[in-house]
């Protein structure tokens, strides 16, 4: 099974030019525009097209598809989790079937076909370099130019009689509907935000309710992002944890190893609590935490955790050494937590770039300041 899954990676991933939209790369765009391969693992057959076979896919996801999605959520193979761009047949579409566009991030593609059981449709996959629709639209790779190119290259005009194309609403930041119509003849219909509403949208005659047009950020969506947030902390943690253990060994009346086993373990625990606070609890509790800035939310949850942890540790707060050591974590936990919370702005569905920049103007100096003073206090506490 794993071997079959491994075949999913698209053929030209490493050959993609740096600027994928750069003009003049005639030979490159020629190979890029070749139809999707039939031998991709999720392809179940093919239908005849005017110029060759068109791969057919099913709305039923296999365990292989699901396993791939789980891995991507944990950051494994996530940057190359892609399907070949081009036209696919979902079920048995004919020249009157709807055409739905999506990104070539495999999770986006799978999400769309899974939402359309028992339906026949054409799926036009744009080359977004394995990035989801919304992020790719923000970068412009899910954009007017790529869409028009892909419409032409797929021969869509000879495959369907109508000139209607359904796009995910979140593709709109990259696509100018009026320009696509002018350049390709196809009229863009922006479908709902979520793939799971597409069936209802089709049944309603391409009409989305107000609710289908809103991007919310419910707890389930926040929770699935936690693994990737944790994975992102892994690399820095691998450096920070040994340093914490090492520093804790110095000073005091006890021996190096004994220090490490006590203050060292406490430091590592405190550090992990900060990660828990910023990368797990902040996303989960996001709407319930006070403050609009994510940094505020990270502090609001990090500070009580720091106080509780230091209280549980029960140091001797009459001695300078313990005051400094406890105080260092009173600074470090909220600082780490706030930083991680601030970085969750990118995963959230409602923060603006202007807002993030304004938040960072005060938040970044605060986080760095608290982090450095905390670290200084930690160092000093070992040597007095």
């Amino acid at each position, binding site marked *: 099974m794993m071997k079959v899954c491994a075949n999913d990676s698209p053929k030209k*991933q*490493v050959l*993609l030019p*740096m600027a994928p939209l750069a003009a003049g790369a005639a030979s490159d765009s020629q190979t890029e525009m070749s139809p999707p391969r039939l031998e991709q693992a999720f392809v179940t057959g093919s239908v005849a097209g005017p110029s060759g076979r068109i791969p057919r896919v099913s709305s039923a996801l296999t365990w292989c598809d699901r396993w791939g999605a789980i891995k991507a959520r944990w950051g494994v193979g996530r*940057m*190359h989790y892609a399907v070949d761009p081009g036209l696919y047949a979902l079920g048995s579409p004919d020249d009157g079937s709807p055409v739905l566009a999506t990104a070539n991030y495999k999770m986006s593609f799978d999400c769309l076909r899974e939402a359309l059981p028992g339906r026949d449709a054409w799926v036009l996959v744009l080359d977004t*370099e394995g*990035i*989801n629709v*919304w*992020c790719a*639209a*923000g*970068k412009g790779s899910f954009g007017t130019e790529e869409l028009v190119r892909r419409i032409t290259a797929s021969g869509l005009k000879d495959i369907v009689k109508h000139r209607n194309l359904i796009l995910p*609403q*979140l593709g*709109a*930041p*990259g*696509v*100018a*509907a*009026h320009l696509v119509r002018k350049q390709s003849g196809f009229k863009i219909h*922006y479908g709902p*935000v979520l793939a799971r509403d597409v069936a209802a949208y089709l049944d309603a005659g391409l009409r989305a309710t*107000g609710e289908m*047009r*809103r*991007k*919310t*950020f*419910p*707890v389930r969506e926040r929770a*699935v*992002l936690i693994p*990737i*947030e944790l994975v992102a902390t892994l690399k820095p943690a691998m450096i920070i944890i040994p340093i914490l253990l090492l520093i804790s060994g110095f000073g005091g009346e006890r021996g190096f190893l004994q220090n490490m086993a006590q203050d060292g373990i406490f430091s590592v625990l405190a550090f992990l609590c900060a990660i828990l606070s910023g990368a797990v609890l902040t996303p989960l509790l*996001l*709407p319930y935490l006070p403050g*609009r*800035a*994510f940094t505020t939310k990270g502090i609001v949850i990090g500070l009580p955790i720091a106080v509780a942890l230091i209280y549980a540790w029960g140091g001797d707060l009459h001695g300078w050494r313990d005051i400094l050591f406890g105080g260092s974590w009173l600074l470090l936990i909220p600082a780490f937590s706030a930083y991680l919370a*601030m*970085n969750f*702005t*990118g*995963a*959230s*569905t*409602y*923060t*603006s*770039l*202007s*807002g*993030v*920049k*304004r*938040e*960072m103007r005060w938040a970044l100096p605060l986080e760095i300041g608290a982090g450095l003073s905390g670290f200084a206090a930690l160092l000093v506490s070992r040597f007095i």
Partner: protein
Amino acid sequence: MKNLIYLRDVVTLRLDRDKCSGCGMCLEVCPHGVLAIDEKRVRFRNRDACMECGACSRNCPVGAVSVEAGVGCAAAVINGMLNRQSATCGCFVDPKNPSGGRAGGTCCS
């Protein structure tokens, strides 16, 4: 859960009501219900809910809506400050290994 709102009075979204033709495309593509149309002219309904995704301005055929579009991602802003290329989406091109494709980033789910 009520819709989440980020910082107040910060977004760069601007409307030119004189240019507006009232086609309603901006309302359709906005994921946060920021805009409304009164008497065939666009107006703000909830300006602070704007996330500057740029869908409205991109799809306005008459240029009545403008915004400095971007991705509200602190990690991407930091990548930009550290001179890693492309401060969008947290996914940057590694300058040392450009042929290695895109790397890093935590925001694209």
